Structures are given as structure tokens and as C-alpha cells.
């Protein structure tokens, strides 16, 4: 590593920063971007293309850069796809090139290309068809994709700042500054976002004057005035997305992930003065490292003192190329030729340009009018340019060079808002600044600002560039495979031709079929050129073709920034039952269920989840047990019309429930599918408690409220969510009544003895409210204790002390499957009451929500599912939920599936529930449970869904 003399540039400071790129050490200067530092170190190969793995170098100097995307940091924390042009250099930065394996200089997959394989548009869809896509997928996945996602993230959360303002101005170039000043003068509150670290934009390269001042003085005065008027000026802040009026701006110290701020801005009006992006011109092998945008070369020279090459050929279609050539010459680069697509007369029309041309000629620069660069030659970089006259006559030339700088004109940078300045196609300083001023004044007026925006600034600068549209150089059909339009996605002119030939003519279809303008690039370097070439191929004007819509974010943003603080435990709230801590400290294996955490089993009960659950369930059947049911959703429906309201939403009549009784009821969706089930308790004449499924509580509350708001024209109903107001302890098993008798006060003895199945009684325990409901989910003699949350732990511990051990959700599942009770596995949104054997409920029912659509003929066809019980034919084998059921006649046609399966120690075999085609539900056909993913096919037979105690004698004991 030889010491280089320090570079001088407007962005650079003295000093040195060392960093690594692909493991090699380099030194840059403070103020450098990763791109400028590598360029100054003579590095030109910076990545490989995503599809063909062709070597790629820098194209641009700003957000338009399609090639030089780096992984920053070390795996597994490496952040992919950071544009080198947007990344501020800092000491110790570790950079890695992407899309290469095993190394950047030698990429194995690039041999694909050497073998002559250029994939055309739709290649993947068309080629990897036999025997199936799946056989190729692993290899393709290894090769495909931009960068690699980090496997871990240790970035700090971004700061998030919410801003509201009248006018948001995007871009602090001359037009944006004029717009911000006009809006602020008119009295609007202004936020000005500039993606570069400093304001000024193109003023950096202008030598004109504004309001009689030079550009630097005007810039300083304008920023001072904006400060005085309270405008917020945010530099290094890129507006990355417009979510229908909420603007997300993202501030990072030059694209450095971490330590960043996300601004969420709600402006009342926007001015978009994001300036322009330079267009490339497409020619054969225009993707070689060394082919760059002319404006980028000027920026690297002026800002970072970095030369893009030694021997240059310039290729343009406008007369600003001559002034550029002079500056590059002055910067020490040798300009061998300027290739101007226009004829000599066009270029020499203007006095200043004519003088420049003769000066350049005198300095040894060859000027080739009416010509185009038709091809770049070279391997890992440009070695020569081929140049041919555009209008016949004269022969092809070959000029040795290491860099070809292209400029095909300027297009507005795609952004949202009222366009102003260059973003509005105004390329001359005076014009742009006046346009920006007018846009700012108009935006302020739109917000109701009444002040006077003042006179527009009067500017004098370079004349507007004269330009003759030119998108690509002529070439043979075969060479179109090497005319690259979209460098990031390897889209060539040949691809566009294929897309058109196959009927994809619309620009949005072409984008999706060829991948033109996808990825982080989003058309910034390719959209307008691509549209122009598509127009040429379609024989239409570019305006008729249009450009595809670019997608946010405007610049790659880390998922960390998007997620903000919503990561880990903060993604969702966790709901805790009053017994949560008890479970956690007593070996309860807590698992999420919706937002709740519930114990699956208790560790002390077995070596595995399976063993523990089987033991817990057996203990409930043999003696008894307790479970935490506090997660049960509880809605209190009160008011004179409560009974009628419930009749209108439940299948069955709540109005016929007597006070002190409860009933199992279901409700339907509008389309007739069963939505939820639960017990409805009548607390009083006009007061009910509806219990709803644990995971469903909030949804069911919204459903009830929606029903009330849309179909319930009468008043007199109040719905209150009392889920958290009552803890629920389920007490089940033959000893449940006697144990409760020991635990509860003497006053409870008589109610307990008399309480009938599905009845409840209210009273007090230890001076607190207690409701005892005789019901359960296990088929045993069972009770539900509804108590105040403060009481729950005390009551729970009294019960455990009296000999009832807790059981978890898995045991609960065994108990309910043995009894054929339903959960969300059966009430899965695809089953009607008929499917679930609830004909009696429908027959006895009323015109409730969803009832009308139950009569649709399709709900009564032979192929509709029907709830059945399932046993293994041999009475031993295991079968699992999710397995498909088939009949012997058609072994590959699923006729149903297993919804639940458990091992029943009580019955000594696996039992299950299934949804089976109605015509097979009678059980005469032999069935197989097919489970290819878990490797077993089990012959099964249909049984009653109520596997255990079908008469219900135990629960009525």
C-alpha cells in the first residue's frame, strides 16, 4: 500500500481513514464516500451483476447507482445492498462486494455466460420446467437475489420523530431553496429535506448569479433566512416514501446503517424539487467497469479529487459535454475524444460552444460529430471504444481508452409532490429557480398561508443545454444481448424485444416480465432510457409508453428502521392471566395463544410434553384437576333488549334461557359459517354473560358491536368486555364437588349439592364475589369458578392444597377430543352448523345473523364435510391432525382431513376428530389417513365423535 498524496475536494477534509473492501486494506479521507475512496484507490471492479455475473463498476455518484452495492460489516450482522455512493466512509469500515462466488475476480456462475448462455426474459419460467421447478430451486436460490439478508441484527433502534408542517420541500437545490423561501415568506411552516450532507444541489457547479449575488452567497443568505423564519432544514435526510400523505423521511449519516432518525412527516402540501438524474446511453457492452455517467465523473473530481480514469472518451447528445470535457482536462485526465450524436452544425450553433470546441481541439481532443460509441471493448474493464458515424459514410473507429463517460440528458428524479425546478424539466438555473419559487408560493397558498411570497429570485447562469434525444446506439440484433438498459437486473434490449414478441407491451408488464427497473434501483438509471427504447421497438413516442411506477423506499432502508421499536417483545402486547406468575414459577410451560400465554403442561408431570399431558388428563378422569380458564372471553350484554339482541346474533334462543342457567350456543358469520361457540349465562332478566373462545375475545367484541351498529336498529343493549374482570378456574373430575365443598364456606354446601348441570350460583368467598357454574370441557363432573382477579391465586392455592393438581392445555385437548367437543380446529371458518352436526340447533333456531345463507344448496351437497370421530383400524396406530383421508377407490383424492388427534390413556388408543365428505361419514368405506410429510399411512375407521362416556353419565353425576 503506497502512500498517496492527499486529495483535495469540496467534500474532503484532511486526514486518513482506513477501511477494507473484500478483505484488502485501503485508505480514504474524511468526507469520502465508499465509492469515491475506492475510485481514488484505483478500484474499478466493485460487484458482479445479479443474473449474468458480469463484472461491474461504478455508474454514478448518487442514489442512482445500480452496481456498487455492498455488504457492510461482518456476517451475521452484515447489512446488504448499501449503495457505495451513499455510504460515508468511516474508519474501520468493512465492505464486501455482492453476487459473486467464490470471489469477485473469479465468479463460478459467470462461466454460465462464457458458455454462451444469455438468459432471455422469462428464462427461468421457461427453462426450469422439467421435471419440476423444485429440482432446480436450491441452486437457483443460491445464485439469485441481491445480496444476502443478515442472520442477526444488532442495530440500535432508530429515533423516530413526528413532524407536522404546512409545506414539505424535497430537495435543497436552487429550486427547492427558492420554494422553501417563498413558502416561509408567505407564512407557511416549512420542512426542507436534503439527501446530501449539505444544501445547494447544482449550485455547487453553477458559476452564475442570483439576485446579484454569487451562488454561494445566495445559498448562505437563503439558509439564514429559512432559519430566521423557523423552517426546519434536514440534511442527510432522504424522503423515502409517501404513504398517501404521510411522508417517511429517513436520516442517516450518508447511508450508514444504525444511528439514524426516521421522520414521519404529515405535510399539508409538498413541493418536489429533487432535481434530475442523468440518463445513460445504451451501447454494446455498456456495462463494463469504466463506463460511467459524465456528471458522476465531474462530481468525483470536484467533491473528492478522484479521477475516474486516465484516458477518457466522452459520449453525449448535448452541448454541456464540452464544458465538462474542459473541467476533466483541467483535473488531469486525458480526454481522447468527444463523441456527439448530433451533426456538426447543431453543436457549433452557439458561440460559446463553438469557442469551447475549438479550444478542446487545440488541446488535442478529437471531436466526432454525428457519431456514436457503438461498443465498449474489454474484459474486466474498458480498454477501447468503438465509434461509428450515425448516418453512413466513414468507417468505424476504435479509440483506446480506459473510461467512457456517457450523458444522454437529464430526467426528473422520481418523487412525490408538486414538481418544481429540474424535477419539473427546468434545466436552466434562472428557469429552475423561478419555477421552484412559484411552486413554493402555490403550496403555501394551498395551505391557507396569506403572506406574500415576495418576488422570485432573478438568476443568471448557463444557458439551457441543447439536446437531441438519443437512447441507444445502433447495433446488430445479436449484439442487443449486450446492450444493457438496467444494469442492476441485467435487462438488455434483447429482453425488451422478447417481451414485446410475447405480448407484454405495456411498460408495467414489461417491467414485471423482464425485471426492468425492479430492485433497489427502481428505474433511476434505467426507467426513461428503457421507456425510450421500448417506444422505439413499438414504433411509438416515449410519451405514449410512459415509465413504470417506482416503488418506495426511494433508497434501501434497513428493516430495523422500518420496524422501529416494534421488535422482539414489543411487536405485540402479552396478555397475562392473574395466574400467569403462578404457572411460571410452578413449572408451567407457557406458550403463546393469541396474545395470551397459557401453560401447555406442567414439567413435574412427565419427562416430555406428551407424557405430561397424558398423565394430567388421566388424573382428571381418575380424581380431578384444575385449569386456568381466565383467558376465556367474557362479554356482558345488558339492557331491556339484551335477550332479543342475543337472539339476533346466536343460533338458538337466548331469550328462553332461565335466570341462573346457561346454554351452549354458537353464532354464525354473515355467510353461514360457524364463527364461534361458548356458554351464554343469564345473570338476570336483562343481563347476560356470553363467553367466547380464548383467542377470539377482542374479535368477538368487535363482531357484537358491528352487529349492533349495522343490523340492530333498536336501542337498549349495552355490550361490555369483562374478560379481565373475572378470573376463571376450571375444576374438573369426579372429586371436584367434594373438593369444592372443603374449600368453599359452609354457605356453599347446599348450592353445590343442588347445582344442576349447566346451572350456576352466585355468592361470596372470603368476602369477594364468586360465581360457580356447573359446566366443563372435559365430560367430567366439573365446575367453573368465576372470581375477581385478586382472588385467583388464593383460590387456586386453596384448591391445590385440597388435592387438585393443575393441568395444561394439552391435557385439556385430550379430554375434549375424547368427548368430541369442538375448538378452532373444527370451527375453522369453513364449517357450517350442518357440517358440525348441529342440525338440532338450526331446526330450533331463529332468524339470526347468517341463518339465511345456510339454505344455500351447496351447503347440502354430498361432498360437504361432516364431523366424525376417528379410530385406527388396528386400535393401536397413531394418526395425526392434518393427515388427509382417502378412500381405497381413489387413493390420491383427499375426501377429508383430521382436525384433532390425541392419545387417550383412558381408552388405550389414539382417538381423533375429522371432517369427512358427508357421503363417507356413515363409515362403510375403508379409509386411510395419509400423512406423507410425517411418513405414515394409517388405515382408520369412522367412529362416533363422542369417544368417551357417550351417555354423559359422568358429567351429570
Amino acid at each position, binding site marked *: 500500500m503506497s502512500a498517496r498524496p492527499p486529495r483535495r475536494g469540496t467534500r474532503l477534509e484532511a486526514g486518513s481513514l482506513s477501511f477494507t473492501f473484500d478483505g484488502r486494506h485501503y485508505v480514504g479521507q474524511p468526507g469520502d464516500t465508499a465509492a469515491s475512496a475506492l475510485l481514488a484507490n484505483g478500484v474499478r471492479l466493485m460487484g458482479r451483476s445479479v443474473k449474468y455475473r458480469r463484472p461491474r463498476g461504478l455508474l454514478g455518484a448518487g442514489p442512482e447507482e445500480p452496481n456498487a452495492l455492498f455488504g457492510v460489516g461482518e456476517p451475521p450482522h452484515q447489512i446488504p445492498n448499501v449503495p457505495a455512493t451513499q455510504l460515508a466512509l468511516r474508519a474501520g469500515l468493512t465492505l464486501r462486494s455482492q453476487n459473486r462466488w467464490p470471489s469477485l475476480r473469479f465468479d463460478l456462475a459467470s462461466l454460465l455466460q462464457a458458455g454462451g448462455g444469455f438468459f432471455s426474459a422469462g428464462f427461468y419460467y421457461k427453462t426450469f420446467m422439467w421435471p419440476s421447478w423444485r429440482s432446480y430451486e436450491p441452486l437457483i436460490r443460491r445464485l439469485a437475489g441481491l445480496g444476502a439478508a443478515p442472520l442477526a441484527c444488532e442495530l440500535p433502534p432508530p429515533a423516530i420523530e413526528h413532524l407536522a408542517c404546512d409545506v414539505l420541500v424535497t430537495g435543497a437545490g436552487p429550486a427547492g431553496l427558492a420554494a422553501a423561501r417563498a413558502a416561509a415568506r408567505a407564512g407557511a411552516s416549512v420542512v426542507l429535506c436534503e439527501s446530501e450532507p449539505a444544501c445547494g444541489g447544482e449550485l455547487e457547479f453553477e458559476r452564475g448569479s442570483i439576485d446579484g449575488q454569487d451562488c454561494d452567497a445566495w445559498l448562505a443568505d437563503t439558509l439564514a433566512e429559512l432559519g430566521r423564519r423557523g423552517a426546519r432544514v434536514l440534511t442527510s435526510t432522504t424522503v423515502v416514501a409517501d404513504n398517501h400523505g404521510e411522508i417517511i423521511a429517513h436520516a442517516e449519516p450518508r447511508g450508514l446503517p444504525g444511528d439514524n432518525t426516521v421522520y414521519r412527516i*404529515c405535510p399539508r402540501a409538498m413541493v418536489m424539487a429533487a432535481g434530475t438524474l442523468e440518463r445513460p446511453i445504451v451501447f454494446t457492452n455498456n456495462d463494463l467497469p469504466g463506463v460511467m455517467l459524465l456528471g458522476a465523473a465531474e462530481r468525483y473530481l470536484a467533491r473528492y479529487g478522484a479521477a475516474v480514469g486516465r484516458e477518457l472518451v466522452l459520449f453525449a447528445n448535448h452541448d454541456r459535454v464540452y464544458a465538462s470535457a474542459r473541467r476533466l482536462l483541467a483535473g488531469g485526465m486525458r480526454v481522447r475524444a468527444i463523441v456527439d450524436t448530433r451533426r456538426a452544425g447543431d453543436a457549433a450553433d452557439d458561440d460559446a460552444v463553438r469557442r469551447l470546441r475549438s479550444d478542446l481541439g487545440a488541446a488535442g481532443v478529437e471531436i466526432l460529430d454525428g457519431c456514436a460509441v457503438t461498443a465498449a471493448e474489454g474484459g474486466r474493464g474498458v480498454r477501447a471504444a468503438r465509434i461509428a458515424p450515425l448516418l453512413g459514410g466513414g468507417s468505424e473507429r476504435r479509440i483506446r481508452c480506459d473510461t467512457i463517460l456517457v450523458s444522454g440528458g437529464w430526467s426528473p428524479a422520481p418523487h412525490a409532490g408538486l414538481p418544481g425546478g429540474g424535477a419539473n424539466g427546468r434545466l436552466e438555473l434562472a428557469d429552475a429557480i423561478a419555477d421552484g419559487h412559484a411552486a413554493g408560493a402555490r403550496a403555501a397558498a394551498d395551505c391557507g398561508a396569506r403572506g406574500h411570497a415576495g418576488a422570485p429570485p432573478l438568476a443568471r447562469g448557463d444557458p439551457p443545454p441543447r439536446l437531441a434525444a438519443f437512447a441507444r446506439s445502433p447495433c446488430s440484433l445479436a449484439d442487443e444481448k449486450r446492450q444493457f438498459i438496467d444494469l442492476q437486473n441485467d435487462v438488455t434490449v434483447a429482453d425488451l424485444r422478447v417481451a414485446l414478441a410475447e405480448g407484454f407491451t405495456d411498460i408495467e408488464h414489461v417491467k414485471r416480465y423482464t425485471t426492468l427497473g425492479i430492485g433497489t434501483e427502481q428505474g433511476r438509471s434505467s426507467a426513461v432510457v428503457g421507456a425510450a427504447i421500448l417506444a422505439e421497438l413499438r414504433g411509438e413516442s416515449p410519451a405514449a409508453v410512459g415509465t413504470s411506477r417506482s416503488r418506495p423506499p426511494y433508497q434501501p432502508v434497513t428493516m430495523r428502521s422500518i420496524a422501529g421499536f416494534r421488535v422482539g417483545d414489543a411487536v405485540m402486547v402479552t396478555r397475562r392471566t392473574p395466574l400467569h406468575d403462578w404457572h411460571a414459577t410452578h413449572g408451567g410451560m407457557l406458550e403463546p395463544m393469541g396474545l395470551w400465554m397459557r401453560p401447555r403442561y406442567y414439567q413435574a408431570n412427565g419427562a416430555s410434553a406428551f407424557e405430561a399431558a397424558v398423565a394430567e388428563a388421566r388424573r382428571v378422569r381418575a380424581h380431578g384437576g384444575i385449569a386456568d380458564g381466565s383467558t376465556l372471553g367474557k362479554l356482558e350484554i345488558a339492557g331491556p333488549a339484551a335477550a332479543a339482541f342475543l337472539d339476533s346474533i346466536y343460533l338458538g334462543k337466548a331469550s328462553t334461557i332461565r335466570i341462573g342457567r346457561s346454554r351452549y350456543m354458537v353464532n354464525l358469520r354473515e355467510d353461514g359459517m360457524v364463527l364461534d361457540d361458548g356458554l351464554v349465562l343469564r345473570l338476570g332478566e336483562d343481563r347476560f354473560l356470553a363467553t367466547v373462545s380464548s383467542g377470539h375475545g377482542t374479535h368477538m367484541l368487535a363482531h357484537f358491536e358491528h352487529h349492533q*351498529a*349495522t*343490523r340492530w*336498529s333498536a336501542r337498549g343493549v349495552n355490550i361490555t368486555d369483562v374478560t379481565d374482570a373475572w378470573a376463571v378456574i376450571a375444576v374438573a373430575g369426579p372429586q371436584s364437588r367434594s373438593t369444592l365443598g372443603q374449600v368453599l364456606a359452609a354457605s356453599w354446601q347446599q348450592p353445590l349439592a343442588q347445582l344442576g348441570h349447566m346451572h350456576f350460583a352466585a355468592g361470596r368467598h372470603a368476602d369477594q364475589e364468586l360465581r360457580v357454574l356447573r359446566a366443563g370441557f372435559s365430560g367430567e363432573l366439573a365446575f367453573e369458578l368465576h372470581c375477581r382477579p385478586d382472588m385467583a391465586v388464593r383460590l387456586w392455592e386453596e384448591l391445590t392444597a385440597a388435592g387438585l393438581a393443575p393441568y395444561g392445555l394439552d391435557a385439556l385437548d385430550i379430554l375434549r377430543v375424547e368427548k368430541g367437543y369442538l375448538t378452532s380446529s373444527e370451527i375453522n371458518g369453513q364449517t357450517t352448523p350442518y357440517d358440525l352436526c348441529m342440525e338440532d340447533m338450526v331446526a330450533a333456531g331463529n332468524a339470526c345473523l347468517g341463518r339465511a*345463507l345456510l339454505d344455500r344448496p351447496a351447503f347440502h351437497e354430498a361432498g360437504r364435510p361432516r364431523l366424525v370421530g376417528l379410530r385406527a383400524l388396528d386400535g393401536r396406530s397413531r394418526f395425526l391432525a392434518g393427515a388427509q383421508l382417502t378412500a381405497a377407490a381413489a387413493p390420491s383424492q383427499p375426501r377429508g382431513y383430521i382436525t384433532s388427534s390425541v392419545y387417550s390413556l383412558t381408552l388405550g388408543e389414539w382417538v381423533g376428530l375429522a371432517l369427512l365428505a358427508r357421503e363417507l361419514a356413515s363409515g362403510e368405506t375403508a379409509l386411510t389417513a395419509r400423512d406423507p410429510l410425517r411418513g405414515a399411512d394409517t388405515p382408520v375407521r369412522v367412529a362416533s365423535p363422542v369417544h368417551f362416556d357417550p351417555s354423559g353419565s359422568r358429567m351429570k353425576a
Partner: protein
Amino acid sequence: VTRLACPFCGPRELREFEFRSTVAAAGSEGEFERTYLRVADTGLSIEHWQHVGGCRAWLLVRRNPSSGETLDVELLAGEAP
């Protein structure tokens, strides 16, 4: 949309609201029509939203799905259109 104007609470951020469904055009008769024949108009979407993070009111929102513009928010009360 990023904000909805709740008739009770005023303009609030969208995250306070929950979308339920699009609804049939006014005048649709019969359960089947109301359930299945939803409006699919690029210029007008009629939707039910709830202000779950606020007053819990159910709202009828008319929106232009092409532009994202909210045309109208009113309280749902009684029979749905």
C-alpha cells in the same frame, strides 16, 4: 389513507382503526347480495371500519381506492346500507 376523521374523536392516525370489510352498494337486497356482491369500483370503495383504539365506534367510510382519498366518514347506526 393515513388518517380517518372519526365523527366523535376527530382526525386520528390510521393505526387506531381496524378495517372489517367492504360492503355492498346501497340498495342491495337479500342476504346473498349483501354478503357477496360487494362494490368493486376503482373510484369508490364503501367500507366498515372500527375506531378500536379510540371510542370503538363503527364507521362507514367511502374512499377512492385509486387515489387513496377518503371521501366521507360517517357513523354506522342501525341498518347497514
